[in-house]
């Protein structure tokens, strides 16, 4: 066992630390010298030279205060290298993103550096890393990166936490029977290659120690033979060596790979990713001629169809998809075009939730559905060359019934509509069989989408590799004894390998197991040579995004544990001319076999710096999209396929595997990801077998009530072909019947403190030949003590209870009622004149029916009585209401473009030092997220109780809305929460004594109390008892031990390393104080100061729109969140549709007719307003499905009240017309939902 515990040293265990750096790069190069010191070869200089980074940078042996300070110093030196140029020469310059030169580095002021995060399976996200005095604290999207355009994903946001994971591997180690454990990069390098062998005397080493060490190492090398370990393979061409590497699209790695493959043609090269298995690129290779990945520009699309594809969240270009999709949904004018999304999937994903029409289908039946649609589409289009494909499809018996048939027909009709040709995009999820991928590609081609909305970009060989097959083949060879050395780089196949590939057993048979990884995992646990990796923020590299944008990744910080990146290790193993990541990347770009046209010229240095600065290599050879589609090949693929039309039943269930927040398991030790709620179920800290409530009932696996103190899922055994996994079931609406959805990446066995004992490993059930779905799975209930398993959710209630919280309108109604005149001055039930937007008049006009809105809470900032009317109090009009001093901050959240991707939550967590609390605390309702995504299922409770599928799922991000008349402020006895002159609802931590009265009185329940020292104390992990022996333990034993019940003094304080992640501009809250969203006031204040310094103008006079973004807004890929000065009616900006607007973005959105205030009738006058979600349903489909209420709501979206169409107030309440979408018809019929009180004559008469 490798002892990773930093405290081992105290127990006298041998934890050695590499103190000497590896041999300097380029020793095999020509004899240039760089200075007199260099020439003289002085020992001191040599030592200095051999350091990759400056003194002190690579000596973090354990996260103590001292090393922390060193590290900070090193980081600062790295960031502001030139500031220290006088004393030390920086070797590797990194370039800040701003125009500011490093000379101007100001302590306390963040610097941004562009880089990129390689996405698992290929592709990349351009990022900006915010660094404070040399320590990266936050990831943002890179605005210059064409894929990200300033946006980011949850994984990018969370990756910063992995950097500071205290459980990371800290030392390279080599285990040798005779000598024991050896460590240190010089040794490892020397062991690997003779050329790297050096016995450099370390600083302060005595003669005796040096001699002993040299002797020791010599003995070691002797044991491995005179040549270096890997040199021995040079002769045999690498026979017996296998590489298992992750899938990244990196030109440098490709170059290094090619060099190695050339040198060692016999070596096996396995590009492994258990999530991106390479099926889709391979399928597309069949029809396009080269492996490719589909990237769509949805801003132009009118019809989008997703066949089991979570393209808004999970694909390599998900951010791009989300951004363009968001743009296509942001309707601002009546009659404006918007996209229509159909989604067919097994479980609610963000894509399905955003869909206008969603059909839940068992995974085995989705191909049938695709065929049914393709048959219709291709037949009707009869595009040239498609005949054989049409024939092949026609021979398939894809008979659909009922709702599915209606959907298929409607989708086909919408796609082939002449107006939509070339304006649609059809997505096929990677989970679908390859032939289905070809069919979908053929559909896109026939629909003339390719080149218009849809592009197929070629991918590299590694990305296209069929991981499952390669790994299976390798496993067979390993079992056959043909492999004696396996090199695993940044992969964890021992954990991820599907059940059909017995990789672990085979791996153990291999003699030499060289494993590189940043964190300990199941594979590193079996390593004989364990190499600690560098986080992507610590290493040089390059990476290509899905459509070709290339980024050179620069390190933000010196490797904290002196880890090495995969390219460095590959270069070391392969004996390349250098194994410095920096030199390797530069070599690539200076003119290796990779895109030389980008920078390989005389101005290389200039261009290099430019590329580092921008985060994108300008002029790099992008990717050329593939357009020529071979229908015949598709027809051939279809011809070879068989269609499984037999749906699942209770005895033979369908299973769908999904890659959730953990992806393939690499985020398991990331507390932010663990505590990020799963999209539909809101389960945290665990996965579960998700199942529909109806199926759960039929199978007897329904969980205990959500109102239980700790709801428990029924534990079952899932079996297919002798493979079994044990997992708890959790019923969630919206899953296809007789289908179990199993998220991958949980149940890690060898993982740090955070990820231990979370969830269930479902890979053993997977089948390498069909990695995404299985049919015919048997479910058997586990009996005995371990039959229940506690599950934590952040939201236990899924019904909106008929309340007008999320408001929606269908497009036909929007076109009809959303025009210029939709903001109306109308009399409410009390005879008052009210200016009401469309959003406020929807849903029975909640505001319309409330008593006179004289605020209970006096507005502390109000300074003039004049012009203050109850009508205005109800809905503040910027510029007229009390707050007239610029700037006045506000926010809008457009529910139409919000896709519920959670990135705002995690971006806020990173920005504002929001703590994680753990599974038990979440179940107690103590999660700390400042912005949460409320999720509601559509459809009334009665039908859902009967087991019917919900009509949809909605998201509503809710953070503190900064009420102008805030209920929290008035009740705080100590003035800890007060109002700011710019409309902030301040939370003064120092003043707070924690009465929690404010949280009680907050109608939005956005305040978060530090019941314990969540932020200050080290996270202590999840469950007390291991779930390994689930069967043998009682439920009570499995119940979590609440580490928080231990007094804080006795708990381990947060280590210095974890503290490095914290944003220094935001207080880390102690226990006993309340906290909540601040509108990122630290950013606002910084921006104001910056603006004042830069221009000399007072921000009070004018503050340019867009100069400050809140963290959630900045991350939001769909621009659903807008933040700014709500009084600014002068700024000019261009809308996404090209129209010009006057007024800040937030001003226009807030004044927009879709804007409404959440719980506005309370007169709290929130500064955050939500915008009505606009759906674009297919009216024919609604008619066919008999959705009468929905159709009625299109006719009259206002219910019988507040309708300017003259609904007539005298009409009885609860009539037909009130049955709009949010109102549970049963309830409306029973007691009348509407709020009106018909006591005053003339009420409901409109102005």
């Amino acid at each position, binding site marked *: 066992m490798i002892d990773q515990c930093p405290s081992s040293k105290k127990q006298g265990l041998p934890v050695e630390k590499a103190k000497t750096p590896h041999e300097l790069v380029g020793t095999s190069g020509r004899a240039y010298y760089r200075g007199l010191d260099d020439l003289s070869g002085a020992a001191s200089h040599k030592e200095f030279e051999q350091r990759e980074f400056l003194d002190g940078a690579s000596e973090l042996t354990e996260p103590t205060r001292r090393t922390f300070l060193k590290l900070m110093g090193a980081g600062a030196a790295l960031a502001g290298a030139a500031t220290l140029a006088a004393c030390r020469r920086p070797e590797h310059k990194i370039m800040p993103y701003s125009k500011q030169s490093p000379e101007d580095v100001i302590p306390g002021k963040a610097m941004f550096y562009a880089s990129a995060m390689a996405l698992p399976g290929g592709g990349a996200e351009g990022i900006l890393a915010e660094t404070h005095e040399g320590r990266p604290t936050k990831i943002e999207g890179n605005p210059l990166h064409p894929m990200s355009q300033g946006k980011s994903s949850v994984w990018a946001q969370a990756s910063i936490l992995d950097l500071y994971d205290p459980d990371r591997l800290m030392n390279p180690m080599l285990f040798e029977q005779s000598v024991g454990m050896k460590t240190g990069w010089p040794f490892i390098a020397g062991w690997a290659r003779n050329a790297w062998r050096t016995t450099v005397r370390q600083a302060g080493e005595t003669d005796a120690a040096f001699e002993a060490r040299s002797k020791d190492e010599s003995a070691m090398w002797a044991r491995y033979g005179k040549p270096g370990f890997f040199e021995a393979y040079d002769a045999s061409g690498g026979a017996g060596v296998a590489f298992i590497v992750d899938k990244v699209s990196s030109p440098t790695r490709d170059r290094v790979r090619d060099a190695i493959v050339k040198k060692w043609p016999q070596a096996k090269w396995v590009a492994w990713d258990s999530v991106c298995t390479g099926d889709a690129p391979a399928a597309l290779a069949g029809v396009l001629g080269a492996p490719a990945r589909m990237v769509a520009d949805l801003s132009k699309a009118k019809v989008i169809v997703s066949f089991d594809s979570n393209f808004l969240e999970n694909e390599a270009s998900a951010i791009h998809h989300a951004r363009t999709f968001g743009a296509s949904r942001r309707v601002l004018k009546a009659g404006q075009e918007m996209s229509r999304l159909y989604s067919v999937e097994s479980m609610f994903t963000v894509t399905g939730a955003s869909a206008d029409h969603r059909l839940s289908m068992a995974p085995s039946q989705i191909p049938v559905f695709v065929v049914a649609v393709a048959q219709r589409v291709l037949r009707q289009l009869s595009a040239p060359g498609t005949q054989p494909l049409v024939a092949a499809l026609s021979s398939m018996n894809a008979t659909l019934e009922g709702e599915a048939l209606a959907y298929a027909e409607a989708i086909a009709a919408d796609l082939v509509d002449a107006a939509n040709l070339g304006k649609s995009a059809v997505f096929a999820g990677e989970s679908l069989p390859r032939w289905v991928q070809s069919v979908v590609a053929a559909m896109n081609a026939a629909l003339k989408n390719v080149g218009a909305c849809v592009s197929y970009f070629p991918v590299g060989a590694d990305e296209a590799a069929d991981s499952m097959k390669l790994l299976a083949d390798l496993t067979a060879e390993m079992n056959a004894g043909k492999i004696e050395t396996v090199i695993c780089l940044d992969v964890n196949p021992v954990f991820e390998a599907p059940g059909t590939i017995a990789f672990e057993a085979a791996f153990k048979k291999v003699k030499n197991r060289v494993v590189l990884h940043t964190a300990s995992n199941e594979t590193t646990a079996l390593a004989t040579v364990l190499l600690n990796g560098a986080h992507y923020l610590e290493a040089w590299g390059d990476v290509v995004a899905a459509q070709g944008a290339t980024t050179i990744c620069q390190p933000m910080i010196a490797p904290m544990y002196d880890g090495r990146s995969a390219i460095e290790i590959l270069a070391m193993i392969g004996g390349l001319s250098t194994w410095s990541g920096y030199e390797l990347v530069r070599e690539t770009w200076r003119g290796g076999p990779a895109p030389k046209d980008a920078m390989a010229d005389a101005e290389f240095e200039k261009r290099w710096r430019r590329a580092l600065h921008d985060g994108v290599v300008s002029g790099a050879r992008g990717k050329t999209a593939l357009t020529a589609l071979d229908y015949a090949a598709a027809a051939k693929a279809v011809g070879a396929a068989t269609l499984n039309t037999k749906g699942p039943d209770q005895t033979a269930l369908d299973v769908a595997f999904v890659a959730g927040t953990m992806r393939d398991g690499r985020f398991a030790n990331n507390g932010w990801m663990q505590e990020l709620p799963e999209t539909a179920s809101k389960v945290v800290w665990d996965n579960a077998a998700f199942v529909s409530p109806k199926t759960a009932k039929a199978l007897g696996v329904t969980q205990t009530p959500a109102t239980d*103190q700790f709801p428990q899922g029924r534990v079952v055994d899932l079996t297919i072909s002798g493979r079994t996994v044990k997992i708890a079931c959790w019923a969630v609406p919206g899953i296809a019947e007789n289908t179990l959805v199993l998220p991958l990446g949980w149940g890690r066995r060898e993982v740090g403190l955070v990820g231990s004992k979370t969830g269930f490993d479902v890979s053993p059930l997977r089948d390498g030949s069909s990695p995404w779905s299985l049919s015919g799975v048997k479910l058997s209930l586990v009996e005995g003590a371990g039959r229940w398993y506690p599950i934590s959710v952040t939201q*236990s209630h899924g019904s909106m209870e008929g309340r007008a919280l999320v408001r929606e309108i269908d497009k036909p109604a929007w076109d009809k009622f959303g025009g210029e005149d939709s903001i109306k001055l109308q009399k409410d039930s009390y005879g008052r004149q009210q200016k009401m937007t469309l959003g406020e008049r929807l849903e029975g006009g909640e505001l319309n029916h*409330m008593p006179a809105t004289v605020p209970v809470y006096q507005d502390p900032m109000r300074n003039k009585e004049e012009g203050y009317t109850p009508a205005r109090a109800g809905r503040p009009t910027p510029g007229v209401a009390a707050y007239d001093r610029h700037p006045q901050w506000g926010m809008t959240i457009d529910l139409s473009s919000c896709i519920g991707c959670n990135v705002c939550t995690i971006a806020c967590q990173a920005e504002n030092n929001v703590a994680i609390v753990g599974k038990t605390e979440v179940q107690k309702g103590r999660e700390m997220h400042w912005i949460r995504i409320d999720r509601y299922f559509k459809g009334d409770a009665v039908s859902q109780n009967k087991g019917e599928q919900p009509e949809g799922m909605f998201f509503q991000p809710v953070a503190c809305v900064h009420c102008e008349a805030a209920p929290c402020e008035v*009740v705080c*006895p100590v003035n800890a929460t007060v109002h700011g002159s710019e409309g902030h609802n301040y939370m003064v931590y120092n003043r707070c*004594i924690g009465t*929690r009265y404010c949280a009680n009185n907050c109608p939005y329940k956005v305040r978060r109390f530090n019941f314990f020292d969540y932020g200050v104390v080290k996270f202590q992990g999840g469950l007390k008892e291991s779930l390994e022996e689930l069967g043998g333990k009682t439920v009570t034993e499995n119940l979590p031990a609440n580490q928080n019940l231990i*007094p804080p003094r006795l708990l381990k304080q947060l280590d210095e390393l974890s503290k490095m992640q914290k944003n220094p501009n935001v207080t880390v809250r102690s226990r006993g*104080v309340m906290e909540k969203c601040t509108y990122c006031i630290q950013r606002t204040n910084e921006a104001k100061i910056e603006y004042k310094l830069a221009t000399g103008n007072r921000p009070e006079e004018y503050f340019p729109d867009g100069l400050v973004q809140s963290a959630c807004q900045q991350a939001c890929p769909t621009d659903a969140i807008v933040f700014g000065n709500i009084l600014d009616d002068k700024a000019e900006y261009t809308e996404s549709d090209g129209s010009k607007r006057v007024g800040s973005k937030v001003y226009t959105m807030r004044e927009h007719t879709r804007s409404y205030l959440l719980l506005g009738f309370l007169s709290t006058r929130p500064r955050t307003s939500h915008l009505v979600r606009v759906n674009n349903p297919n009216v024919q489909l609604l008619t066919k499905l008999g959705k009468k209420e929905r159709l009625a709501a299109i006719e009259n979206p206002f219910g019988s009240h507040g309708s300017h169409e003259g609904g007539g107030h005298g009409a009885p309440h609860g009539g037909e017309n009130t049955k709009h979408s949010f109102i549970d018809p049963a309830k409306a019929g029973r007691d009348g939902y509407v709020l009106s009180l018909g006591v005053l004559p003339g009420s409901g008469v409109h102005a």
Partner: protein
Amino acid sequence: MSAINPDQTTAARLAGMMRAPEPPRVDDPVTKDGSLVEDPSVRAPLVLGNRTFNDVTETVCGYIEKGPGRWWMPAFGLASAVASITGLMVGYLIITGVGVWGLNNHVDWAWDITNFVFWIGIGHAGTLISAILCLLKQKWRTSINRAAEAMTIFAVICAGMFPGIHIGRVWMAWMLFPIPNSNAIWPNFSSPLLWDVFAVSTYATVSLLFWYMGMIPDFATLRDRAARRLMRQGDSAPTLPIVGVRVDQLRALIYGLLSLGWRFSSRHWHTYEKAYLMLAGISTPLVLSVHSIVSFDFATSVIPGWHTTIFPPYFVAGAIFGGFAMVLLLLIPSRILFPGMKDLITLRHLENMAKIILTTGFMVGFAYAMEFFVAWYGANAYERDVFIYNRLMPPFLAGEDGKYAPYWWAYWTMIACNVLSPQVFWIKSMRQSPLVIFIVAFLVTIGMWFERFVIIVTSLHRAFIPGEWGMFYASWVDILTFVGSCGTFLTLYLLFTRFLPQFAMSEIKNVMPQANPHWEGYGHHGHGHSTGAAGGSHAAHHAPQAPKEGI
């Protein structure tokens, strides 16, 4: 046997070590027990057994001088053991964090504020009895007011603890008080929580003063008795073991200090009664204000179920209701445990209090009903949902949509205890039976605790936004803290019974028949009853007969 050479028994008695032989009870031949007399022309006596003034003094002082009985020490041990749990729990809470309770971000107050309001409510009966009934010249109050006032003080002590410890940073609690500081930051005077601070502290202060002032003449009596015994006994007076101080020396010293030089002079009495009346006048609005202000914690909020204008009277009625129940819970066992107390606290007293329970029970029942009416009449769906789906709806009545209130059991416990259980008092035999009254009082106490729980927790756990609904589950610390507070209360009350006069002797003597100069003794109504009954010859027996004095 003379006073100079007393026999052993007399010596002990005089030394306060032994009780004088109990004079046999002499019931009024007409009314028997007397207190439950039905004849409208006959007033029920307030002191039974034909007691003399001296008997009253002996009875009341006897509990202090001779101890309440053998049961006291075990009871005190048990109660103080339970009370010590409070200390442990509070210590644990402060060391560890408020999270040791079951609170969460949906339900930020639960047992802490429930207990606070519960204990504050308990205190109300004391002030009501001592102040309002005093002003209304309800003479029957005299035998219960001291105990009720003591109970008030102790309940306020228990109540005051909870707001103090429930805050997240206890060490910053001083910021609640308007202490001048260099930052010129004052507390937020618009916060009801701050009003609470002032209301409760005023209430505690006035109640304490009132209670203490009422005890001054009785302290003086105790002092004088001790001093007299010391003079009589000289060196033969028994001494306390170990310390070697004479018991009566201690008594004379302590009660002497407490009695503030009271000399029973007419001038003293004159001033005393004026002051007493004034304090009663000051206390009277406090009875109404304290619980009204406590109810503002909820009524001024925006949360449906809290935001209710009927809260102030509803809370006051509820407090009186709960307070009387607690008085009964304490006095009914006392009647059994303390010899002679049955003469002072008659069945009529109990019946009167049972009637008040019935009345105030109706008031809270009316308030419960009004909440529903207002929720319906206000036509606010949020409010209506709180009352139906947060409180009322049991799962077995849930409709097709399956919606029910998870805390329905708490609501129905409250209704059963507070509205239904007092209804037995419609039956005369029930409201005259101490056992039944005790059971009902116990149920009402439980019900009143649940009332506060229902108001606080069920309103909070499902408020406006269903996405943020959640449940509250009490932790063991929650439970033990409350149990500990009950122990604290009982400990303090037991100490009170041991060391302080449980009855206002002068006031009781005032309402005794003998106090009436026209009283002629029993039997004036022609039954040949001798006033010189076996009770010994006291001057009072020769007082002329007077119209019967009583309730």
